[in-house]
């Protein structure tokens, strides 16, 4: 099978990789933000629950979490039959979203802690309410501080998406492996490498641009 037949197939696989990436970012960033809010709230019980959640998500393999969402959920007592996810893509996406939200929550929490105490004081002295302070003063600075770490996480995500082959989804890596098996020509791996590199590079450029734009 020649190169001009591989490329469309691999592009097809890429599309799934990109879809998974996009869905994960779009949902895990806000969810991570919400977790950060809850984590930094004054309610001790809430804080403990979020800490446990983050420990669970970061302390166990993502692959295991993907298996759990796809195969394990139906076996949960009582709620099992309501939370069954039949679509492989949705199951994979759910696992990624919940896993990455935990990482983003930790990144944002770090960003929050690095916002200078003087900013809160200036806001208070200027008569801003706590909500106004949070949204107009603290969050924009938190995002700026978090940007490099978020960029790092996003590049890891692009590569992590390959894990969904384990539940039978056909992404870029899966397509490549199939081609190699069929043709016994390993140069398909080289093409896949290029695909991943291009995606990572574009991401890097996007985040570089964002960092420049918010370089105050």
């Amino acid at each position, binding site marked *: 099978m020649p190169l001009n037949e591989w490329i469309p197939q691999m592009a097809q696989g890429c599309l799934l990789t990109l879809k998974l990436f996009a869905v994960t970012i779009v949902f895990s960033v806000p969810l991570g933000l919400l977790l950060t809010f809850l984590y930094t709230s004054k309610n001790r019980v809430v804080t403990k629950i979020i800490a446990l959640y983050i420990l669970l998500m970061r302390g166990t393999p993502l692959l295991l979490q993907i298996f759990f969402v796809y195969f394990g959920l139906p076996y949960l007592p009582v709620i099992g039959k309501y939370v069954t996810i039949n679509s492989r893509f949705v199951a994979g996406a759910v696992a990624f979203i919940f896993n990455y939200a935990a990482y983003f929550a930790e990144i944002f929490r770090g960003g929050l802690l690095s916002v*200078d105490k*003087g*900013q809160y*004081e*200036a806001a*208070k*002295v*200027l*008569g*801003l*309410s706590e909500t*106004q302070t949070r949204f*107009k*003063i603290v969050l*924009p*600075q938190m995002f*700026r501080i978090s940007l490099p770490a978020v960029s790092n996480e996003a590049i890891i995500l692009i590569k992590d998406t390959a894990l969904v082959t384990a539940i039978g989804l056909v992404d870029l890596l899966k397509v490549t492996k199939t081609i190699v098996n069929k043709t016994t020509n390993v140069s398909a791996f080289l093409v896949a490498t290029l695909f991943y590199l291009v995606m990572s590079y574009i991401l890097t450029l996007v985040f570089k641009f964002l960092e420049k734009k*918010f370089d*105050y």
Partner: protein
Amino acid sequence: MEMITVKGLKKNFGELEVLKGIDLSVQKGDVVAVLGPSGSGKSTFLRCLIDLEEAEGGSIYIEGSPLLEEGKYIPKKQRRELLYKMGMVFQHFNLFPHMSVRDNLILAPLLHKQGSKQELINKANEMLKTVSLAQKLNDMPKSLSGGQKQRIAIARALMQNPDILLFDEPTSALDPELTGEVLRVIKRLAQEKMTMVIVTHEINFAREAANKVLFMDEGYVLAFGTPEEVIDNNKSERIKNFFAKLDTK
């Protein structure tokens, strides 16, 4: 008119007693310089006045209205309105780095509905003229020098039409050659009869700009009077020593 009245103000940080019963009365148009050794509680006192620290005892009245009365604070919601009569300028400026000079200036008055956006931008332009930074409206804080940042911070405080301005060492974070431009702005405000309380280590500035000097030591007021009384003719050994040491520096 009595702008600030403080009676028996007490503040602890854990075991540490930082303010041990401060009394002070500031009249309209007074410029009070707060002097004293490092760690004597000057910043803490100023921060209590504007509710950045909560005191344990005593009373604070702003223009006759209680903020704290015999150790009891008024409810949080009522504090915001009362405290908006006062502006504060910090040692490290605390400009909002993600906002232009313009947005730093109009943010608070816009949220307090003190005018339309256009009116407030016009007012911001006027304020920038009073601190001699007329061209800086659209600059980001990052691009300004320390002295310029501090003058923007003063303009930002003035935007809220405060009756009282508090300063905590407004020139201590600046290179020596930049302190003059900031002190000039404060002196001009003094001439315009703005009521101000200024924590400072600039003795000459205190002499020239202030009509009252409050000398603090170890959480007490050691002296309160005119600059001549407190700086030049005081009988307290501690105070004499303090100024003697400064002179030799």
